[in-house]
């Protein structure tokens, strides 16, 4: 047993899950309670730092997300977990092993779903799963049975003998996932699992991922869709430019970094900025009693976001003051707002 990571240390304390009820001390007494643990993880490409010293821990059986815009360094982090990219600095343990020292062994524990489907076009759908299993050294006889089970799971049984080329985007994605499950991985790495899929295909996929979570598989997924993160992740880190901006469960992050509700207003392109200041002053003054719970106003190119505990009362106030926005919308806060608050930019540009 490797003792070095059992001892509590500063970096470990920083990243202990915020709303995890179990105290760090009990956590650390377990042998390898965490599936993945990274400290000071860094990746440089020449002068450019893609991942800039990040720390995180993924517990066993948890579903953990990396949320961030394109280029944040999510895929790079995933590739370092999967032992297909060398670290420039920091440590990494996957099930207690260093991926760089024990590549094949670590990858045997993992199921990897890369950002781009890379199915084998020279093989049929079924052969894709079987051959992938063979790469893990699994016996063909066992694979024949397992493959039927996975095709069923991915709802591809009727396509078993088709060429990969003849599959739709959603089917390809499901096949990639089925293929990654062939070694019954303990940890599943999903890099933007649903990007580019239509809503229906995406919901089918989510459903499959829920089932895996139920079955106790550790899920690590990256996404730049906050709804996906809210749906699938118990805990997540928000990354931007290779750094961790915040960490916690989706609900806790929203609670911490945003108000309960948001009021979206459009005044027309050229008037947004001047209206923002006016609104700020107005709502600050009106909120003396605290009934609105006003926090602040964000200006986006096409609209204003008014952050308040009660967006409805804020809107009443605004109307009462004689302001007439072209459109108004009351909604709950989302991770998008968290990201906006933390970085001053929106997640999907």
């Amino acid at each position, binding site marked *: 047993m490797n003792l070095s990571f059992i001892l509590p240390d500063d970096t470990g304390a920083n990243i202990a899950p915020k709303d995890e009820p179990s105290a760090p001390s009990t956590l650390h007494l377990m042998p390898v309670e965490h599936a993945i643990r990274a400290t000071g993880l860094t990746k440089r490409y020449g002068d450019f730092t893609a991942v800039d010293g990040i720390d995180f821990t993924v517990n066993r059986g948890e579903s953990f997300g990396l949320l961030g815009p394109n280029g944040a360094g999510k895929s790079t982090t995933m590739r370092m977990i999967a032992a297909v990219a060398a670290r420039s600095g920091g440590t990494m343990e996957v099930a207690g092993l260093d991926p760089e020292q024990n590549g094949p062994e670590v990858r045997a524990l993992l199921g990897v779903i890369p950002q781009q489907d890379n199915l084998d076009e020279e093989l049929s759908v079924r052969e894709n799963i079987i051959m*992938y299993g063979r790469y893990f*050294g699994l016996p063909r006889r066992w694979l024949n049975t397992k493959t039927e089970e996975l095709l069923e799971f991915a709802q591809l049984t009727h396509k078993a003998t*088709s060429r990969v080329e003849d599959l739709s985007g959603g089917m390809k994605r499901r096949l990639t996932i089925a293929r990654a499950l062939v070694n019954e991985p303990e940890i599943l790495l999903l890099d933007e699992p649903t990007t580019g899929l239509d809503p229906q295909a995406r919901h089918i996929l989510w459903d499959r991922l829920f089932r895996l979570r139920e079955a106790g598989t550790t899920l690590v997924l990256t996404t730049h869709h906050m709804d996906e993160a809210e749906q699938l992740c118990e805990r997540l880190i928000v990354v931007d430019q290779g750094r961790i901006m915040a960490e916690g469960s989706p609900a806790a992050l929203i609670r911490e970094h945003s108000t309960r509700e948001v009021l979206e207003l459009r005044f027309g392109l050229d008037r947004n900025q001047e209206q923002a200041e006016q609104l700020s002053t107005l709502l600050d003054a009106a909120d003396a009693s605290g009934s609105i719970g006003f926090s602040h106003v964000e200006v986006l190119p096409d609209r204003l976001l008014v952050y308040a505990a009660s967006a409805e009362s804020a809107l009443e106030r605004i109307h009462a003051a004689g302001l007439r926005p072209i459109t108004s919308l009351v909604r709950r806060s989302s991770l998008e707002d968290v990201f906006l608050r933390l970085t001053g930019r929106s997640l999907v540009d």
Partner: protein
Amino acid sequence: MTDQLHVRPGIETSTSPAADKHALAGRVRRVGALHQAERTLRSMRAYGAVILFSSVSQPIMYILAMGLGLGVLVGDGGDFAQYGASSYLMYIGPAILASTVAMSAGIEFTFPVMEGFKWRRLYYGAQASPLSPGQIASGHILAVSVRFAVHAAIFTVVLALFGAVSSPWAVLQIGSALLGGLAIGLPIMAYVSTLRDEKGQMSLIQRFVIMPLFLFSGTFYPLTNLPGFLQVIGWFSPIWHANELGRVLAFSQPTPAWMILVHVLYLLGITAGGWLITVRIFSRRLGLEEWRGRTPGAKADARRQTRMAARDGADVERSAAERSSADRSAPERGASDRSAPERGERPASDSAATLPRIVFRRGFAANYYSGNIRAVFGRGLTAIRNNRGVIFLSGLLEPVLFLTSFGLGISPMIASVDAEQVGLGGGGTISYAAFIAPALLAVSAMNGAIFDSTWNVFFKLKITKLYRTMMSTSLGPVDVAVGEIALALFRGGIYALGFLGVLMIGGLVDPLAAVLMFFAALFIALGFASVGMAVTSFLSRFQQMDWMMMVLIPMFLFSATLFPISVYPAGVQVVIQALPLWHGVELMRDIAFWDFGALTLVHIGYYLVMTVIGLSVTTYRMKKLFLR
């Protein structure tokens, strides 16, 4: 796509010329093909050094190897006076020009077209601009024509410098060679532009179309040297027509006027027809017009689907049968499965059928080699099985074609080869066919291994990214590299068996030697595959493959395959002896003529070194490429 935007200044980049959309459209209608040609030429310019270098070096190499080398063997050239040539070199010069153009047509009209439609979908980018599909096709043809013309011009100059032309009309060879290249290339381009998918058709075209048309085109000997039925191939071959035209132009080969007319009309006819059909196919494929509701290649796909379904069905039945028999013996199996996990194994999780243990190699280099080469090899076999069998078998054809062409075509000019002269003990003479047969086996082993380890590996590395997928499983880089090399050897082994069979039927080798030669062929293939893979791991673009070809062709020409090394001065001999193929050729001859000596060991040692270096570099690069 952005390329196209950049190379057509004045259309997208600045606003003022683009303001008048009507005038713009008219201009593009008139000269759009030129825009596309310019674009292609510019992208060629990126590797223009390669093109220029090959245009200069090819003629020199062919002149030195075939003209002078084979010329020594063929005789003093007196026989060629009847054709109007003063030497063997002069006789083959124009034909080599036409042949090299035709060979490069086989590349320029296939891969870039496939790239345009499928691999990089460049044409779909051009299509979004005001260019018409026909202009895209014509643009490519024009650009390639420019390249051919430059090549032919340089070639002609080099021939003249060697005194291998005797008529000022030789300049017109540029036209005849270009026409020959288009006549062979355009029908191929038309065919390739109907393909939805590259499933080995490129190598089929090389082996079944371009090779026979080249080998039986009377390039290295008069077509009449061949038996009648093989001459027929020559009559159809655009290369033969271009050769004959070139000969008329370069040294006034006596030819009746009507025959000249036939050559010209034949080449013009095919070129015009091929061009029209290509433009039409491009228009259909890139335009809105459907294939009358039919997808090209759909029928073949459907047939293949049925075949695969039948095979899969069999597999499923087999596995179902196995499952039911396994169920019966389940209790014992379950018990043994639950034994304590041992070192290097991971305990199985409980599911319907328990996951068998994933076993790792531990210890030395466990990070690079997981002990599962079999899986990589197995994947290759499955892929070969899924492809058309004819593609696999076509590899057999190449050495047989070479042997037929040179054996039958050159033999009338060379009665026999003096054993002493070719460095074989025992004295006496051997037939020319028996002389080249073992060497051709070595050449074919090299070609097969190089093809598998360069084109195929490049494809899996850069285009399909198969290796990346493999490296996300428990495979290590060594498993992938060795598995791929094993696959190349498997394929090479089958080709060697086939060729040796032909040689035995022809009485050119005896059975015992054949067995040893089989293993020698695998050994040679191993050396080339290892080095080929190592080199490929450094390449990043298709065009860099040209460099590879530029090494292979001289190696073949100067390998003492078609004539003994003794025809060269000592200085040149040393260079040839440093090249790997010479060692392979000599090793094969040592076995075939049962003439072993200390040099035999040197040949073997040479390949051992190649293999070790190649494998080490490959492994190192694989790690670099996939663990970045």
